[in-house]
C-alpha cells in the first residue's frame, strides 16, 4: 500500500510543480460552461433547462482533456518502464495514478459545480443532486478514461483516438448523471439514476485498474 500512496503523492507533487495544471482543469470547466450561454443566447428558461446537460458535458470534456497526460509523460521518459519493473504490483501503482487524476481533475469539478449551477438558476436541492451525481460520476470517468489512455499509449496521435474510444463509454454516465438532475427538476425520483451510477462506479473500480494494467503492459512490449 505504501507504493500506492507514494504514487498518489508523486503525481500530486508533479502537478503542483507545474502549478498551472491544478487550476486549469477547473478553468476549462468554467469556461466551457460559460461558452454556451454565449453561443445560445441569454434566455433564462432555456438555460435552466439545459443546465444539467451542459454541466455534465463540460465535466466530461474537462476530464477527457487531462487524460492523454495520465500516462504519456511517464511513458516517454521511461518512468513507466521502471514502474513495470518495480517490485510493487503495477496494478497498485496504476490505481494510485488514477486516484491522483481524480483528485486533480475530478474532485475540483465536483466542488465547483454547485457554484456554476447557481449561474444557471438551479435551486438548492437540484444543486445537491448535481453534486452528488458528479461525486459518483467523476471517479467513473477517471477509471474508464484510464483504460483508454493506456490503450492509446504507444499509438502516435493518441489524443484524439483516445476521445474516440472513451467518449462512447462515457455516455451511460452522462445519461444517468444528467438524467438524475433532470428527473429531480421534473419532480421524479432520482434513486434509480443514482444507484445505477453507483453500481457502475463499483464495477469500474474493480475492473478498470486491471484492464488498464493489462493495456499498459501491452504498450510497453
Amino acid at each position, binding site marked *: 500500500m*505504501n*507504493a500506492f500512496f*507514494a*504514487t498518489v*503523492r*508523486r503525481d500530486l*507533487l*508533479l502537478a503542483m*510543480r*507545474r502549478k498551472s495544471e491544478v487550476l486549469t482543469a477547473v478553468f476549462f470547466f468554467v469556461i466551457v460552461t460559460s461558452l454556451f450561454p454565449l453561443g445560445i443566447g441569454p434566455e433564462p428558461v432555456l438555460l435552466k433547462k439545459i443546465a444539467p446537460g451542459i454541466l455534465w458535458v463540460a465535466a466530461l470534456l474537462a476530464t477527457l482533456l487531462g487524460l492523454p497526460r495520465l500516462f504519456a*509523460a511517464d511513458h516517454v*521518459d*521511461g*518512468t513507466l*518502464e*521502471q*514502474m*513495470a*519493473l*518495480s*517490485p*510493487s504490483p503495477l496494478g497498485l*501503482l496504476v490505481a494510485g495514478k488514477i486516484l491522483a487524476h481524480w483528485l486533480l481533475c475530478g474532485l475540483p469539478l465536483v466542488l465547483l459545480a454547485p457554484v456554476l449551477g447557481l449561474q444557471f438558476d438551479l435551486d438548492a436541492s437540484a444543486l445537491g443532486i448535481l453534486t452528488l451525481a458528479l461525486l459518483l460520476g467523476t471517479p467513473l470517468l477517471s477509471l474508464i478514461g484510464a483504460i483508454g489512455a493506456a490503450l492509446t499509449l504507444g499509438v502516435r496521435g493518441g489524443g484524439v483516438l483516445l476521445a474516440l474510444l472513451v467518449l462512447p463509454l462515457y455516455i451511460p454516465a452522462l445519461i444517468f448523471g444528467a438524467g438524475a438532475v433532470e428527473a429531480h427538476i421534473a419532480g421524479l425520483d432520482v434513486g434509480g439514476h443514482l444507484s445505477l451510477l453507483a453500481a457502475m462506479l463499483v464495477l469500474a473500480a474493480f475492473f478498470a485498474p486491471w484492464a488498464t494494467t493489462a493495456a499498459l503492459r501491452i504498450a*510497453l*512490449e
Partner: protein
Amino acid sequence: MLNVSGLACSRGERRLFVDVGFSLAAGEWLHVQGDNGSGKTSMMRLLVGLSPADAGAIFWRGERAPSVEFRRDLIYLGHHAAVKEDLTPLENLRLAAALDGVALDERGALAALIRLGLRGREELPVRVLSAGQKRRVLLARLLTRPADLWVLDEAFNALDVAAVKLLGDLIAEHLAAGGMAILTSHQPLPVPGGKALVL
C-alpha cells in the same frame, strides 16, 4: 544465479538473434557487444521482462523469471532518462525509491547525489541540467536501492571522463560485494574481467 538459455527474438520480419544463452554467478558481469541495431537493447528488455521473447527461458536463483523476487533484485537503466524533468534530483530519487517500496531518507538521497557529483544541483529542476547531469541523476539510483542484478544499457553515454571512472568504480564495488551486472557500451569499459556476449 542467473541462467539464460535459448533466448530468441525477432522484430518485424527480422530475426535479431536465436539461441542466446549465458549464466552469471555472484561477482561476474557480462558485456553485451554488437553493432548498432544488432539487438542489444532488445535482448535486455526481454531479459528484464518488458517484452516477451519468441523462445527461451530465464531462471533467477533457480526460479523462472520474471517474478516479483526477480524484480526486487533488479535494477534496469535503459536509454531513457526516466527522471521527471519538473522535479529536482532529490525529489526524483526519493520518489523513485518510494515507488520501489524502499525507504530512503533525505540524508541517504543527498549522499548518493553528492557521490555522483551533483553537489549544488540538488534543488534545480532536472529540466535545466546538462545531458550528463541528467544521466547522473538516473545513476544515483544504483546507490539508493540495494539490488543484486544491474542491467545497464549504454550507461556510459554522455558522461565525462570523471563520471565514467566513477561509474566503473561503482560497478567494481558492486561486483566485489557479490553483485552481478549486464552492461552494453560501444566504448571500452573501465571494469576488469567480465564475460563477453556478441550479438
